[in-house]
């Protein structure tokens, strides 16, 4: 074999492996999920209308919640003989990649379940304006219009149809509170009360902490943003396309300092390594309390031998701000069947709301459906107050900006890591964050 040829072979091998990796990245996890399949239904019998198939992509929330979603789609299909919704459940990351590719290839999905990365589609004009349908078909008095405002991306028109809310609550382990003779959290708690309780609930054996008062569950940006907002601070006054965010403010410094101190000054919360060591933390009874999403209820309600309850998020000097998020549906602007797609969206916002309320996995957006629903058997004492009385203190926990995800990945997470590893001061971290995030946001 001549040298020339071996050369060529090496080149070939390099190309092959390179492209193979590229491909395997692309096809990972695209399992053929979703009920039924085919996109081309045959024309139905007699003089009936042709059945319309809609492709719908949503992200998966694990087996229990996915089962509810599959059931939802099935009930819709059963009650709407002319429409067939084909749902594809994908991991979160895959979902947006898949939607992007469907948009790029000119065969867009009809419907998708919204999350923040999809804001880019709105910016490119790929999401349908739902306001005309809202005006025509929905009785807005059944909803909290104010809470829907964030989805008016242009200030006037709804682009996503909200189906449910999510929020933060304070979870606590009653047994650990009893054992330490600490009074249960109340709706009047300030963060000082929280810290005092956490001190009493931290248990050491020798120099090793075997039980922590709390965790670093508010360490992500939306967590400390909420603490900053409770003091009247904010990252921006406009969550739609902010060109500049402010991080280096006294309120945000206080918020982050409070969290960093939980680990390194008060020793009531585990650092990353210790958190790792505690394993299932709250579930295994080694954490006395934490502020977490109400989506954790799905897991908590099935735990045995864990006596837990919940309370509203603590206040900062008497003022409470609770971040909330919305789950909802969006339609691509290029769908061939906007009317049928809207039928599905409308159904989730109206007819299905009572079922949603009954299931108790998500907070329904319909006020009347919520009133009719009974409290579930597993609901602890503080359930109603913590889960449903947050609306007056609610502030959206999102920021919509094309480069926001890049800013989170490249700047906010690494600096967060350093602050909570005590490698950088809060002040220095926020200074860097403000400068570097704004550089990214300013990119065209």
């Amino acid at each position, binding site marked *: 074999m001549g040298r020339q040829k071996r050369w060529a072979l090496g080149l070939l091998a390099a190309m092959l492996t390179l492209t193979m*990796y590229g*491909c395997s990245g692309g096809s990972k996890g695209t399992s053929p999920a979703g009920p039924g399949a085919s996109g081309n239904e045959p024309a139905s019998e007699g003089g009936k209308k042709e059945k319309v198939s809609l492709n719908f992509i949503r992200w998966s929330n694990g087996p229990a919640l996915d089962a509810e979603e599959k059931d939802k789609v099935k009930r819709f299909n059963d009650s709407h003989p002319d429409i067939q919704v084909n749902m594809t459940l994908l991991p979160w990351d895959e979902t947006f990649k898949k939607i992007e590719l469907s948009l790029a290839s000119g065969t867009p999905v009809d419907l998708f379940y919204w999350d923040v990365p999809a804001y880019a589609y709105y910016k490119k004009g790929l999401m349908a304006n739902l306001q005309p349908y809202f005006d025509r078909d929905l009785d807005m008095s059944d909803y909290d219009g104010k809470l829907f405002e964030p989805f008016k991306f242009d200030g006037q028109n709804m682009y996503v149809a909200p189906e449910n809310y999510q929020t933060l609550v304070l979870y606590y382990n009653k047994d650990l509170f009893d054992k330490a003779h600490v009074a249960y959290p109340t709706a009047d708690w300030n963060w000082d009360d929280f810290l005092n309780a956490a001190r009493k609930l931290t248990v050491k054996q020798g120099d090793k902490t075997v039980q922590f008062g709390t965790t670093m569950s508010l360490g992500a940006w939306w967590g400390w943003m909420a603490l900053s907002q409770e003091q009247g601070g904010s990252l921006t006054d406009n969550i739609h396309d902010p060109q500049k965010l402010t991080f280096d403010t006294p309120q945000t410094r206080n918020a982050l300092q409070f969290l960093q101190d939980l680990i390194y000054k008060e020793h009531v919360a585990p650092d990353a390594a210790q958190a790792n*060591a505690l394993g299932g933390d709250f579930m295994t009874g080694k954490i006395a309390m934490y502020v977490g999403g109400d989506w954790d209820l799905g897991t908590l309600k099935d735990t045995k031998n864990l006596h837990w309850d919940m309370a509203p998020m603590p206040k900062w000097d008497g003022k409470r701000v609770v971040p909330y998020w919305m789950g909802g549906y969006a339609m691509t602007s290029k769908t061939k069947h906007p009317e049928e797609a809207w039928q599905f969206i409308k159904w989730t916002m109206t007819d299905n709301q009572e079922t949603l309320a009954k299931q108790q996995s998500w907070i329904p957006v319909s006020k009347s459906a919520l009133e009719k629903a009974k409290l579930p058997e597993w609901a602890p004492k503080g359930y109603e107050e913590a889960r449903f009385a947050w609306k007056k203190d609610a502030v959206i926990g999102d920021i919509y900006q094309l480069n926001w995800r890049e800013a989170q990945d490249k700047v906010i997470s690494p600096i967060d890591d350093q602050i909570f590893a005590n490698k950088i001061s809060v002040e220095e971290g926020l200074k860097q964050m403000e400068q570097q995030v704004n550089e990214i946001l300013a990119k065209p």
Partner: protein
Amino acid sequence: MNLKRKWLTRSRREALDCYIFMSPAIIGLVIFMLGPMAASAYFSFTKYDILGAPAWIGLDNYKALIKDPLTWQSFKVTLIYSAASVPLGLVVSLLLALLLNRSIKGIFLFRTIFYLPAVMSGVAVALLWKWIFNPDFGLMNWALGLIGIHGPKWFIDEHWALPPIIIMSLWGVGGSMLVYLAGLQGIPTDLYEAGEIDGAGAFRRFLHITIPMLSPVIFFNLITGIIGALQVFTEGFIMTAGGPNNATLFSVLYLYRNAFDYLQMGYASAIAWVLFLLILLFTLIIFKSSPMWVFYEGSRRSSK
């Protein structure tokens, strides 16, 4: 018939066979890969967000790439990983192959067991190792504790995030081990016998017979190892999400994020091409150096 025989000489026949055997790979390459590669070359000169049409911007992506500290960080991480994992893998898989190249009863069982990890899913393996390297109750620090070493905070301390991924890479040595094993079995025993008669000990036989006879196989494993290592992705994607503080931000992971998370397909394509040229460069260097150390039986030229 006569004419045909003339045309189909022995060497032509061999060449034909060679191309027939290669054809599935070549056809696949042309149909499925050349197109995307050409497209990515074009995209690397455009601003392309997948959602809209690409716009030509010349060399801007490459210029931005030079100024982007994270690109450099990602190449640094990738090169450190490669420089450590490739030699380690070569040595360990050779040692394993030597161990398994014995005629003991049931040796096939051991060969299968050692090869098994190489065919297991990358994601499952990544999760498994994450537990093994858990700083407080993982097997690794428990074992280190037994010999009185206080294990580091694997994956959590940014200086100790990459080493476990390098150690993990050994899990996949089964593939190259198998190639070594085939190579070892192809070494004629008369060479060892001759060596023994000439008074060479086991180590000298290994050094002067096994290694040179195995050099084409080492060469092959080195090339595929480097190509594979420079494209490491799953570990950073599944286990560490590139963190802490970008300590495990591999180039392909950064490329992936640019393409699908930040919607900068053009920039991602530029990274892909730089990575490709880097891989090409390493491959060429090794090919160029091969006459110095690779010994092909039957080609006396290379042995000089």
